[in-house]
């Protein structure tokens, strides 16, 4: 399987603070890849570098063989990388279906002219987008809440809406930042099922997660960060028994 994402020697410095230090790894196509580490390890910073919210101080990032280092966020989305946020960033005062419709923005072709004059092309595209948005909402189990304002949805529903919006950008790689935070065990199970469905659509899943059971069960390979450095990479079994990983989480024994 070819690597869909290749992170090479990436460092991110904020003034004197080194958030990410010389991290390299590869994500293979079609797998579930997890990024774990104690709080403050630099996981979200790494996500931000991959999706273009930060520009790496050093290193390169390649997606499907092409260099995407320093691309702004909307370009990484257009290239095929979608993400959700640790703190859920939905458009609170837009409806669920409108949130998902917005996700289609970079895949639509209506220009200013089409929008101004409501050309047949625009009308047809809007219809297709609505249909596809409804499909995605059904997929994540929000079919009945299409017209609810995002603000009014329950927490779990909001997380799933964010995933639906991300899927609307037609990604090849989906980055999930702590998607199961605050979930009940049952919700976590449902989330893992959703991940399998997403995999089935040919989308690689790269997730940050704290729940070890979820990580060990769901992911094929894992990379572990601590204080910005990569301290381990491998299969769940390999990582689980790695001494440095254990120390990072539990602290060094005297």
């Amino acid at each position, binding site marked *: 399987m070819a690597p869909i994402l290749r992170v090479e*020697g990436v460092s991110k410095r904020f003034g004197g603070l080194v958030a990410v230090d010389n991290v390299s790894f590869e994500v293979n196509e079609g797998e579930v890849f997890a990024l774990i580490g104690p709080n403050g390890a630099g996981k979200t910073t790494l996500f931000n570098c991959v999706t273009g919210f930060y520009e790496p*101080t*050093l*290193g390169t990032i390649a997606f499907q063989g092409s260099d995407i280092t*320093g691309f702004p966020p909307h370009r990484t989305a257009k290239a095929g990388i979608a993400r959700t946020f640790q703190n859920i960033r939905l458009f609170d005062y837009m409806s669920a279906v409108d949130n998902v419709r917005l996700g289609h923005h970079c895949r639509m072709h209506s220009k200013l002219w089409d929008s101004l004059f409501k050309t047949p092309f625009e009308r047809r595209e809007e219809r297709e987008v609505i249909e596809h948005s409804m499909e995605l909402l059904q997929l994540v189990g929000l079919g009945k809440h299409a017209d609810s304002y995002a603000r009014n949805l329950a927490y779990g529903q909001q997380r799933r809406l964010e995933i639906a919006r991300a899927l609307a950008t037609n990604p090849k790689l989906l980055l999930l930042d702590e998607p199961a935070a605050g979930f009940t065990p049952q919700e976590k199970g449902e989330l893992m099922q959703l991940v399998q469905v997403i995999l089935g659509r040919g989308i690689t899943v790269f997730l940050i997660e704290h729940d070890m059971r979820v990580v060990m069960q769901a992911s094929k390979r894992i990379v572990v960060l601590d204080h910005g450095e990569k301290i381990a990479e491998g299969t769940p079994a390999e990582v689980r028994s790695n001494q440095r990983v254990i120390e990072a989480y539990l602290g060094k024994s005297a």
Partner: protein
Amino acid sequence: MAETVQRLRGTFFALNVNSLLNLVGLLAILVALFATVQRVFESGGTYFFQTLGFGLAEGAIFALVALGYTMVYGIIELINFAHGDVFTLGAFFSLAMMPLLGLTPSSSGAGIILPMLGLFIITMLFCALVNITIERVAYRPLRHAPRLAPLITAIGMSSLLEGAMFIWRGPFNLSYPDYLPEYQIPLGGDLTIAAKAVFVIVLAVILMVVLTIFINRSTLGKAMRATAQDRDAAQLMGININRTIAATFFIGAALAGAGGIIYGLYYNSVAAFDGFQYGLYAFTAAVFGGIGNIPGAALGGFMIGVVAAMSDGYFTVAWTRPLIFGILIFVLVFRPTGLLGMRVPEK
């Protein structure tokens, strides 16, 4: 090695519109400087020092007003549009209070010192009270509203104050007594500087020094600095946020009120709508020096004053306003942190 290559790569990609604009801007500044220097030499030293003195005096007043803008922005990230009008209000109020203190346009001599002191105190108090009322009534309720709301309210407040002064005294220029000494201070050779200017500068500097001491030494000053840096943490430390913010408005307006009196004394005329433009100039100064940065506002004030005076004196008055606003836009676009760096709440 990799780092150097990376850094070089960075510069190559930076050859874009932004860096081109930077280059153009830099060239424009150099051309302007050259033109100015040429004219300075043509007109001679006396004229230069007169203009410089005028600029520093004007700048001192800008600085006093700029401090109010910068302190308020530094603590609640709001551009208090009404601040320039509080400044004008200070001038108006002091004018109205003069008869009560026994001051007439023909007063002179040492006998005016005490009443003037009294005038300063009551004017500064009045402006401070007006400002904290504005904060309490118009800005505090909107502290958690979307960004646009307090900004629009601030514009409304500015309009209200201007309207009030307009109704009170009309659009006319009111004449302000001329109590400042008239002579020229010799600087050696043929060069002189107006005593008026020196007076204004010294007065303003004294006020700024008092402010700095206060900010750095007093408990309230510390509370203001803490709240400006991190409001939540300050609150957790037991600082009364509302009172601290009110204090910031209080002090800023007091300085503006003093500035209003000084403005009147120096220019001998004041009108209802002066504050709007003056306020924008002062805000330019605050941004120029670094918004939220108190020494920056002072430095910015003096520099903008000198720039404006040089533009008036060596080029034409008609282009001074576009120049100052051009500087404002330039700084915000290319170096929003200003000269000395910005100090705004950390997110």
